[in-house]
């Protein structure tokens, strides 16, 4: 673990990750992967894009007093009820208050069009969910360790 913790010791809370995922099973798989990871993190889940954007807005407003509620990483599913994942991504990346937060796409879609579109809209990474649990967990661990441990975040 990095000895130079990015957060003041007063918070002593693990970093917050916003997960936008409508499927309970997929969230369970993700949550389980986080729990089984060596890198600790808190998860905040919303099931729709709208809820996610609302949360982000409120947390940014409350940042001066509660910086711990602003996510350091966003995990976004593309196949969402209502607002599409791409639209959520676009809203985040167009908002100067939010655009700095790394946003990782987590989806089952291997569609080249989706991949291109997401990177063009400013996605920081695009991960295809593995079918097998073991492989899924493995790829999630790599992702968690990279973004929350290896990479230096703003």
């Amino acid at each position: 673990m990095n000895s130079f913790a990015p957060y003041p010791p007063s918070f002593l809370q693990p970093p917050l990750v916003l997960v936008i995922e409508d499927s309970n099973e997929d969230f369970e798989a993700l949550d389980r992967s986080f729990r089984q990871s060596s890198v600790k993190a808190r998860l905040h889940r919303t099931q729709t894009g709208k809820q996610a954007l609302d949360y982000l807005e409120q947390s940014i407003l409350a940042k001066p007093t509660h910086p711990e509620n602003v996510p350091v990483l966003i995990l976004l599913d593309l196949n969402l009820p209502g607002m599409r994942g791409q639209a959520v991504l676009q809203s985040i990346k167009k908002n100067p208050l939010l655009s700095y937060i790394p946003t990782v796409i987590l989806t089952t879609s291997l569609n080249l069009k989706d991949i291109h579109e997401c990177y063009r809209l400013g996605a920081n990474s695009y991960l295809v969910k593995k079918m097998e649990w073991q492989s899924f967990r493995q790829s999630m661990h790599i992702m968690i360790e990279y973004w929350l441990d290896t990479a230096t975040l703003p």
Partner: protein
Amino acid sequence: MILKKKFVILILDDCHEDLQTYQRFLERDRTNSYEIHPACHAREALQFCETQWPDLIVLDFLLPDLNGLQFIDAIEAIANGKPLPSILVMTGQGDEEVAVTFMKKGVQDYLIKNKVTETNFQQSVQRILDQVQLRRSLELQQKWQLAISKVSLHIRESLDIDEILNTAVSEAKDFLFCDRAIIYQFEPNWAGNIVAESVSPPWRAALGENIIDTCFEKSKALMYAQGRKTAIDDIYKADLSECHIGLLEAFQVRASIIVPILLPLDRSVSLPKLWGLLIVHQCQNPRPWEDAEGLFLEQISVQLAIGIHQSELLQQLNQELAQRSRAEQRLLIQTQIQGKLIQDLAKSTTLLEIRNRDLDTFVAFASHDLRAPLRGLRNLVIWLLEDLGAVINPELQNKFDMMTLRVHGMEVLLNDLLQYAQIGRVEANLTTVCIEKLLRDIINELEIPIDFTIHIAPDMPNLVVDYRALYQIFVNLIQNAVKHHTRTDGRVEITATLEGDFYRFDIIDDGPGILPEHHENIFKIFRTFGNPHSRDNTGVGLAIVKKIVELQGGTITIESNGYSGTIFRLTVPVSYLNSDQSDSALGIASDLTGTLNTISA
């Protein structure tokens, strides 16, 4: 009758001696015979004229009741449009002036009474009657011409054969004043039918009689075919066979004229076609026919032939038109049927397109929406086991295993179903495939018990086929043979034989076999005859195999008695499209086989 009629001569003289003298002169004429009627008074003569019109009147100039000129006026008065009889006037000596007056009145000749001799009297009568004869034949000819024109007009106005024939017989009979006129039409065997008749009562009608003429002479036929006619004045003097006379007697015939009806040249035969005969009959009495009467009939026959020919042509034309119309109708019906077929086809195609779209939708649904919950289910089992950790008891573990197994089975089934639905929906990719290499690839990929033998015959061909299709066929068949085997040391043999345009592959195993009563159902989807609880046994495999085989244009059959092994017999058509290519590929492939053998050795 008209021409040979005896001339009627009326002699009018009040002097009885003179009357007898003239009568004697005429009776003594050896070259002519006359019908002589003597009269002493003009009144008597006029009475006679009212009953019979004389051809010649020998007229005495001086009569007790009327003079000669007055008599001529009286004759003119009762002539009623008839041409006046010729007149020979007898005058006295010195009455030449009177004679001139008579000549001016149209009298033909005069003789001076006391200078009359038998010779000059006979000559004078002869000369006058010659003129009469001449005038009469001219008139007759005009009448004939008229009659022939009338007949031809009738014939040409009509294209109806019956009308033509009836006109001809009716005109011929009326014009020749005979008793019967018939038209006889030949049948191919010289028999024939009376097809038209005009007959005067009381003579028997012959119409419609079929005459099987056993006494018809073939030489006569030839004669008729050459266009020659026959005139018989009296059947008893015409040297006819008794048989022929009998036939004629049956119709009361005594005299006849027979004229052939010859149709215009038939294209296929050099002679004109003898269509039939135009016949006129005189019944009861013999009749000395005139040449002119025969000629008249010949002209009628020519007109008849034209009429018949035209009518036959018309009939033929009508038949052809009818045939053509029928053909056109058939064509129309066929076109309609074709149109309907095309419509049906279009409908089916549309339906098929709709079904294909439905299937696409289903495949998309199945591949995502059915798979996702299965994956979730599987993960949940794993997570439960993870969460329970070491506290799990064996009984619970067993139930979790069963659950995992079932979920896995469901995934396999789903994959099989998707595969089955997608067969033929992906375009075939034809390449030259080395079958031996294909089989070895399959064997390497399958989990085969270590003691199990799979033997590939050495003469495997190279075929231009869809690699994926053939892979699926063989992988299923080999997998089945291994999976359903009761022993782990079983044996499967694969052989190939060229049979005409097909390669036959036999996949022979020494497993438990399949009972013959199951053979029919084994290729149907969801039919499985092994252990229903066993892994991966979905009952879709052989249905997939059959579908793919048939899509490649081949067949698959099964041979098994149900207790000692099974042979799956598979045929794959040899593609000749790239025969050169496949030949060269064969060369490469045999090298490859050699290499493979070396590797396996």
